[in-house]
């Protein structure tokens, strides 16, 4: 996402979900920018293509707590 698109993206996400802020409140664009920047590191992990999404601990096996 381009830097100049962040405010528009944030505003449209909030509007589409029915969240409205008073006009005097600034949109947290700087925090969104920082979070998205931080999440780039996720792309450095080679995720195995066949990995399904459900969590390991929802399956039977050693991940299942004993109680």
């Amino acid at each position, binding site marked *: 996402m381009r830097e100049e698109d962040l405010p528009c993206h944030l505003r449209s996400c909030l509007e589409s979900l029915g969240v409205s802020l008073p006009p005097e409140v600034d949109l947290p664009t700087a*925090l969104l920018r920082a979070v998205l920047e931080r999440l780039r590191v996720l792309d450095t992990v080679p995720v195995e293509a066949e990995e399904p999404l459900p969590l390991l601990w929802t399956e039977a096996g050693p991940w299942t707590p004993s109680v």
Partner: protein
Amino acid sequence: MDPLRLTLAAARARLQRGELRPLDLVEAVLVRAESVQHKLHAFLWLDPDRARAEARKVAHQGPSGPLWGIPVTLKDLIAEEGAPFTCGSGRRSALRADRDAEVTRRLREAGVVFVGRAHLHEFAYGVTNENPHFGPARNPWDPERSPGGSSGGSAVAVATGCALASLGTDTGGSVRIPAALCGVVGFKPTYGLVPRKGVFPLAPSLDHVGPLGRTVEDVALVLEVLVGAPGRYTAGLSSGVGGLRVGVPGGAFWQLAAEGVLERFEEAVRLLERQGARRVDVDFPWEPASAAATAILMVEASWVHLEGLREDPMAFGPDVRERLLVGLAIPAERYVRALSVRRTLARRAWDLFRDGVDVLATPTTPIPAPRLGQITTRLRGQERETRALLTRFTNPFNLLGLPALSVPCGLVEGLPVGLQLVGGPGHEATVLAAGWAFERARGPFPTPRV
């Protein structure tokens, strides 16, 4: 009798032998609580008469459970019938819980006496316990500093003798961080081991309930009640660490913490080695694990609070509101990627604990308690966001759902820091035994002067 000098285990033994009465113990705790409260604000609500009435009722029943007569406080996010249930939110300040959470019920059945409602960061969404609705809780080692959060009131109460144990919740480190910064023990068990029914969620796939206490044995005793398994963890506490493989992360890890914290950490690992543990150098993917935890936390928390945001976003404090709004704008692709990374890293962690190590050791936090209002912290020449720093070593284990313990391991510039010990899934007993061995070798930990 000074409750600050009494562990839960010692009080329990004296109560069961009839050398101490529940009402006397609760009275001593209340004297501490009333004197500490105006300085440190450990509680959002403290009703001494209600606690005394509970103590009388428990005393009348006679020694009826494993924690009979023990004063315990709950984070005000865990429902306690008839008591306030604010979750640290101003808009909920008039609410009372109409029933106990499951963990509350189990503790009540075990005979505990509930004392007050422990302070927390608003909706548990933050690690400094600075709360715009109720004011901050303060660190007992320096009241100008944060006690950590979000279970800050729980840690302050235990550190100052206002309760002999507390329950907190931990979604990114919220039990372990305040435990470390206040000089007490905190434990987050394997995901799903302790029931969360009746506990207000933050991010359901990362949320854990866990105990704080003054010693490893104390948290083990509470955990046994929470899982309904007497003796499961205490029976093996003294099994020692001979031959235990302790994984110590290498590489970039050493650039992520303050020098004083790393010195205390190295001393702690050497102490474990002297008890017979074997150090194993390992790699751990801190940055992607922490980032995946952040993405999942932010998206899930925003989903939990969507109705509240629609109704009145201004009812949230500014820091929590900002994070909730940003969570609504994280692209779905990033969230799904975080879930895939979680799966991949969980499998790697499973391999690590199956083949390479028995426990992983890290500092609990990279820095000691920050000052209240300290947005950034200078670390190794770089200005970094304090909030992200504090969760750096803890939130990967919420992502992976692994049991993780924080034990005080020393002081840095007069402030306590913690050793974190992490085990494989379901290996609570191994982690607690390692923590107990370390604690014994370390010797008594100082208490704050309050």
